[in-house]
């Protein structure tokens, strides 16, 4: 997965969760980031992950004045701390 793929996939996922049109979701920022583990610091409940620092992208989106954070690398996309939980997309 490329950075562009991850951004597109994140927008689609957020639109589905918010039950809104993808055009209403804006991209606040996308930056390279080092995450603390192989779950990109966004492990789901009961999920174990490798303790290796992992290079990826932090994707910040916004909709209706609220901010959302996705984390991605070439293998995966995750939604971070959405209503108190993390999700693998």
């Amino acid at each position, binding site marked *: 997965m490329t950075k562009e793929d991850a951004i597109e996939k994140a927008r689609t996922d957020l639109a589905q969760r918010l039950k809104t049109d993808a055009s209403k979701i804006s991209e606040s920022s996308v930056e390279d980031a080092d995450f*603390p*583990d*192989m*779950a990109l*610091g966004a*492990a789901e*409940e*009961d*999920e*174990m*992950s*490798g*303790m*290796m*620092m*992992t290079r990826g992208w932090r994707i910040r989106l916004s909709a209706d004045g609220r901010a959302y954070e996705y984390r991605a690398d070439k*293998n*995966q996309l995750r939604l971070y701390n959405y209503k108190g939980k993390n999700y*693998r997309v």
Partner: protein
Amino acid sequence: MNRNNFLIHVALAIVLILVAAFAGQLNRWRKHWKAQMRIVPAEEKARPQTPEQIAIAETEERGTPEVLVKFKSGVSSQTIEALEARINDRIVDRIENAPGWTAIDDMDDASPADVVAQYRALPEVEYAEENFAIEIPDAVDSSIEPVRPHDPQFEEQWALSNSGQRGGKEGADISAMLAWATTTGSDDLIVAVLDTGVDYTHEDLLANMWLRPASMTPYQDNELGTVDDVRGFNAVDNTSDPMDDNGHGTHCAGIIGAVGENDLGIAGVNWKVKIMPLKFLNAGGSGNVKDAIEAINYAIARKKAGVNVRIISASWGSTQKSRALEDVIRKAYENDILFVAAAGNSSVNNDRQPHYPSSYNVPNVVSVAALDRNDQLASFSNWGAKSVAVAAPGVDILSTWLQNAYEEKSGTSMATPVVSGVAALIVAEHPRISVDDLRKKLLASTDPIVALKGKTVTGGRINAAKALE
């Protein structure tokens, strides 16, 4: 008075003065000699004078504890004291930083093993073990000639030999070259890498990969049925193929046991060893408790079947506690298997925010923090004065990767197999060592590091050469 009498009196006076002066000097000399020659009473002579003598005397006074006993929570001091009185034992010390643990001296001259058995049978006792004597060598023998392998990328392996390359601190390494003068490992022992699998075709690993002996039947599992475990175990899809589809497990395996002195790539902490891949993390590097348990159960079952699994290396974790996972790690302990686990990468104190499995209070668990090439705790590494045992190099570590590649990676994931590798060297040198003694020897084999003071149990970086003394 005539002239003669006068002279006699003067002479007498002079003699008397001289006698008095001589007597005074004699008295001073007598006092001086008395002070020098004073006979010291026996009890005073035995009294310790120096701090070392005082410490030794205090230890002798208390008696050397024979067993360490952990009483169950809720057992009061009064109950413990009554218990000691009843079985004629004596509490020597309550151990700091280890709640519930008490050092006990047996007064009946029973063997430590018998005393341990006696305590383990008591309902008030959670655990008991012998008080193992640990001798910490002052320094590694300087007469030992270091052994340098000819693997072409060895120069980049600062964790094994830090010459100050790339701005590092010379000597901030695990003294691998000195350790190799004693042993480079043994292919009679097996280290299980519980991870994403291992690329067992990697040319720098192939010769050190475990294969099920031809005489051994395939693995039988009540739930899975027959698993043809030729190369290890895969709990992700319950196939017999533990091939790595991520790279993380292959990296950890190379740190433990990339083939040394083969003119290829790197050298592992062990030049020869047998690596058993246990795959439970998927291609993304994540997994679940159930699969971890299945994989550990596999290793235990193989141990029971005669495969010499001595160490499980676990470079993963989470903040979620699982009693089931803890129980299976305890089962590994009961089968004499060390469990080396990553402390975690969240820059937090595990004493306050535990990370599992490294924070499980099971006697075979060794929790590992990460150091950089300058002997500093890695910026990402968790720590814990009570809960993290030891530290090892874990930043910019070069090791094997998928498809005959090599990559540098960072994390307590990388520090963990360094310690697993040192444990394997100890077992190579002492094949019959128990898991308890192996753990204690590991923890007694560190170089004190200023940056680790108050950060780990040992406050030191693991030293492979010390571990083999």
